[in-house]
């Protein structure tokens, strides 16, 4: 676990850099997390992906299928991969403040 500070607030990250307390997420945290994995500055397209993932997770307690991310953001699959070099799981879900998904990610 690592501590990271933003705006005077401390955050706990797990070994893979996911927020330990997903409820402490806000958009400033997303901007910070995006600087650490090659994603960089967040554009409107990034926000469309991140906000959708976040809302979906709050409603369903799981990450959405990437199909839903595409259909709700209007982005093509390859565009999503280009936006977040670490992919939808370790990239987008992490920036959106979700806990790390199970499985080969």
């Amino acid at each position, binding site marked *: 676990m690592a501590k990271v500070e933003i705006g005077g607030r401390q955050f706990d990250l797990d070994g893979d850099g996911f927020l330990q307390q997903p409820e402490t997420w806000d958009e400033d945290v997303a901007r910070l997390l995006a600087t650490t994995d090659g994603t960089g500055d967040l554009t409107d397209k990034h926000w469309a992906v991140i906000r959708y993932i976040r809302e979906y997770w709050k409603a369903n307690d799981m990450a959405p299928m990437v199909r839903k991310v595409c259909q709700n953001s209007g982005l093509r699959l390859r565009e999503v991969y280009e936006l977040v070099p*670490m992919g939808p799981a370790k990239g987008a879900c992490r920036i959106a403040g979700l806990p790390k998904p199970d499985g080969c990610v």
Partner: protein
Amino acid sequence: MADKTLTLKQSRALEALNLRLGGRLRTHLNSCVHCGLCGESCHYYLRYGDPRFLPGNKVDQIARLYRRYFTPQGRLLPGWFGAGDLNDAAIEEMVDVVFGGCTMCGRCSIHCSIGVDIPFLVRTARTMLHELGLVPEGLQSTVNAAIESGNNMAIPRDEMVDTLQWLEQDLRMEVDDDSAGIPLDATGKHILYTLNPREPKFFPLSISAMAKIFYAAKESWTISTNCYDTTNYAYFSGSDASARELTQRLTGEMQKLKAGVLALAECGHGFRAIRWEGPDWLGEAYPFPVVSVIELMAGYIRSGRIRLDPGRNEKRVTLHDPCNLVRAGGVIEEQRFVLEHAVRNFVEMTPNRENNFCCGGGGGQLSMGEYRDRRVEAGRIKADQIRETGAKIVAAPCHNCIDQLMELNQVYELGVEIRTLAELVADALVLKSPAVEGS
């Protein structure tokens, strides 16, 4: 065995070892001569130089317990015979070494002067830790997801169906043929194709690629939307009961759908677990063949069922050999045969084939975030191997390896694309248009 200093769980862990003490396990437990040759084969030891990561020390994690509790000399004179108690300190080191410092890649075994099956001993040690309730949380929760939901990412069935139908629409557009499809839950097909849940959930391009290849080969195939998971994380956690349960589900689905061949997606440990370990867990041979989709693709090329134009893949490609598919699985030359037909410029990494280095993501490491830094540090060897090839694309026929390679790509700034074999083959496919076919 009735040792009053042991807790109930500790006794149970030793009993798990006792139950497995057949000829094979005893042979490997008794064979290490501590020559140390294995050290230079292990990506953890090479990166850290820490003797705890010596494969011989991994053997000792369990061998010293075997000697202490199951041999007369170790019971009487433990200090003289390298025997050690099962106590809190021993357990703590065991967890750190067999879960946190080993990917069960087996490279040490081929460099071992005796041929000790070190991953087999590591997995048996993990079985003991499973009895102690000490499987790392992320790994255990991946096993639980598979047992409870039917797949290791807990994808609901309707979501799975929606995704596959979405991919089917794309496929029809791409090949410009409305008869192209992804047949779901169809009975009596030749192939039952299984997936790594990571594909439908986050990375479906590899499913599209295989669907396109099956279409081109005019294959009779289906995907079950009830039971499709190639992975078996219980192989990593050490739980034989869960590993057996997951294997039984697949064999049951084969029978239910009356399929001829069980074809596994590009997944190293899944191939090893289902193809090679499954019959042991079930206690019987399968009544059907189990193949990797790599073998299928090679067969289509060899028999002329698909035609490829390597000119469509011009960039330099190198190949990562997933340990469980290659060193432990015996699928070694087929992927090379496929690449030689699918890409223009294929270059090997060094070393390769059964002497290949693990990417660092095996053994369930991806699910154990607490060891992430070690995983990435141990993966530096793989990153260096890739960089030396000058390749722009790494073909990795294992979804688990792909995720680790994506992370290495970012951390070590390799600037490569990581792709499945099927994706490269699909890009090279020469499809006859229906009009041409009729002429």
